[in-house]
């Protein structure tokens, strides 16, 4: 069983052909760095999201490799070029079978 969490994507519903539009993708995750210790001196195991990929009609638009230096609830603001109406898929994968997939559609005028 994979773990999942809440993700919120902000992107326009429609875009003109050739327009570059902004995408905001935020996901709920502790991003436990693996460098913290409890008061008893026990190291807290690393538990982070390792990769975030955004694809647009199956083609990769943006990909990110995350390390413990990314803050909790990772946010990425990036851009995509409107070519055809279709769907955008956002996928986060991480430690301990973490997997969150969100899909959005966009209409290109």
């Amino acid at each position: 069983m994979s773990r999942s969490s809440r993700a919120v994507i902000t992107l326009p519903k429609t875009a003109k052909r050739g327009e570059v539009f902004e995408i905001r993708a935020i996901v709920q995750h502790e991003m436990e760095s693996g460098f913290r210790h409890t008061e008893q001196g026990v190291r807290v195991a690393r538990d982070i999201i390792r990769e975030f990929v955004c694809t647009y009609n199956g083609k990769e638009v943006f990909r990110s490799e995350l390390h413990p230096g990314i803050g909790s609830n990772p946010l990425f603001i990036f851009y995509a070029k409107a070519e055809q109406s279709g769907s955008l898929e956002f996928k986060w994968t991480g430690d301990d079978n973490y997997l969150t997939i969100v899909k959005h559609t966009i209409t290109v005028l």
Partner: protein
Amino acid sequence: MNQRRIFITSLTALSLSPWQSASATPSEAMQAMQRIVGNRPVNTGRIYFDLPPLVENGNLVAIKIAVQSPMTQNDYVKAIHVIAEANPLPNVVSCYFTPLSGKAEVSTRIRLADSQKVWALAQMSDDSFWRTSVDTVVTLSACTEMI
């Protein structure tokens, strides 16, 4: 030993030792960059790197990186890497773009363990590398505190 003495010694043992070992050095950051670049030359500039010069809370630092590029099939920005000199792990994030991105710009939120120099390294589609750095002062550091 009284309770207070025990408390203080345990604090020193627990908090200071992992603290000191858990920080990278500028040379480790350079090695991290070397692993990405290989033996190709690195130019300075071309990158817009927005990082506050004074950070109050290192747990969540908003950064923005942009590289001027036409983003066509033949000329686009392949990747942007962020490397922090004094974080426990120098690699912070690597972002990869395609011509479909339309714009080589990304904003995210990172952790900074200490006052330090942070590098942004960009790889173009012709495999040339560009880098820029920002110095920042962090008043409350992230990553290594006890919970």
